């Protein structure tokens, strides 16, 4: 059972690797190559070169699902910045719309805030490029207080009806 779990974990890591594979692999190879050059230029011993080789080996071996080896996408970062700025402007606008019911306002504002938080987590905190297990390790515990809030709201609503 445990073995099966492990296998599926590796499988998903590999699957992920395929998506970002070529770019990530290229980046890691370049890094390793740079290290090798550095080592030889500084007249270092063969240990340097061997270390660089080793790093190279490890990076390539890792199926290249490497978060810190996937090439950062500046265009995407700027696009996300734009989205966050626009969503913030919408939030401020929505909060000042006269005559909007409190429930509707609450749902709209909380929805926008959760969307913004998720975007920051996925793109800026790189959760999009992490393994499924790490994503779930973050998402599930943080869902707990949200569920608790919903329970409290439901309880409050029920009390109002009595």
């Amino acid at each position, binding site marked *: 059972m445990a073995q099966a779990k492990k296998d599926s974990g590796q499988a998903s890591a590999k699957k992920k690797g395929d998506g970002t594979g070529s770019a990530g692999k290229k980046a890691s190879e370049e890094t390793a190559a740079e290290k090798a050059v550095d080592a030889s230029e500084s007249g270092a011993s063969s240990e340097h070169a061997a270390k660089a080789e080793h790093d190279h080996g*490890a*990076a390539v071996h*890792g199926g290249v699902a490497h978060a*810190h080896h996937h090439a*950062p996408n500046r265009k995407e970062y700027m696009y996300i910045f734009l989205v966050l700025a626009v969503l913030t402007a919408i939030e401020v606008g929505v909060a000042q719309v006269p005559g909007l019911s409190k429930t509707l306002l609450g749902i709209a504002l909380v929805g*926008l*805030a959760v969307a913004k938080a998720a975007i920051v987590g996925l793109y*800026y905190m790189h959760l999009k490029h992490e393994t499924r297990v790490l994503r779930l390790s973050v998402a599930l515990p943080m869902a707990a207080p949200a569920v608790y809030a919903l329970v409290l709201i439901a309880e409050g609503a029920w009390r109002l009806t009595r």
Partner: protein
Amino acid sequence: MSATVAEHGDHGPKAWPDDAQYGVATGGKIGMWIFLLSDGMSFAGLLLAYGILRGGSHIWHHPGEPILGINFTAALTFLLICSSVTMVLAHAAAVEGKRKEMIRYLALTALGGALFLCGQYQEYFGIWSHGLTHEGLVFGQSHYATTFYVITSFHGMHVLTGTLYITAILVRAIMGKYDHGKADHIEILGLFWHFVDLVWILVFTFVYLL
């Protein structure tokens, strides 16, 4: 030999075999995530307490107490989003081995944090106009005032910590510790800083907008 090992000690995590569940996430990164989860629970506790107090109160906003300024705080929110962008760009530059660019973006991020703190000081105590403390929002006088100060100052402490953390990493970057694509520590710093931004997004909504 030993000198070589010490010099290249930072490379260690990269040579670890990949974890079946966490891939190549380093121990440092997983450690930061665990800390952020516990920190997130602290904020969740404060926000839930705020919600319970507000939901159970007949009068939330007492007459005489100032209304929180949304536009100024929206500007602060935008400032934090900007500093998140400069943080990811610092990390991108670190990955690409561009030291000068990395240092510039780290400095800009720290500046963003410092400006946010100035903004919060203006909001609380006033620099160019009266602050909330002078306008009748007194800690301990109402749930409205107390929850506001507790939540925003707890976040403010995170901004202060983050700004000091960025400054420390900035000094190390100037010393050349993160050259040649050694971006792990920058990414871990980024996790903390983006978390501070992420929490502010929620605080801004719950405390100011709703």
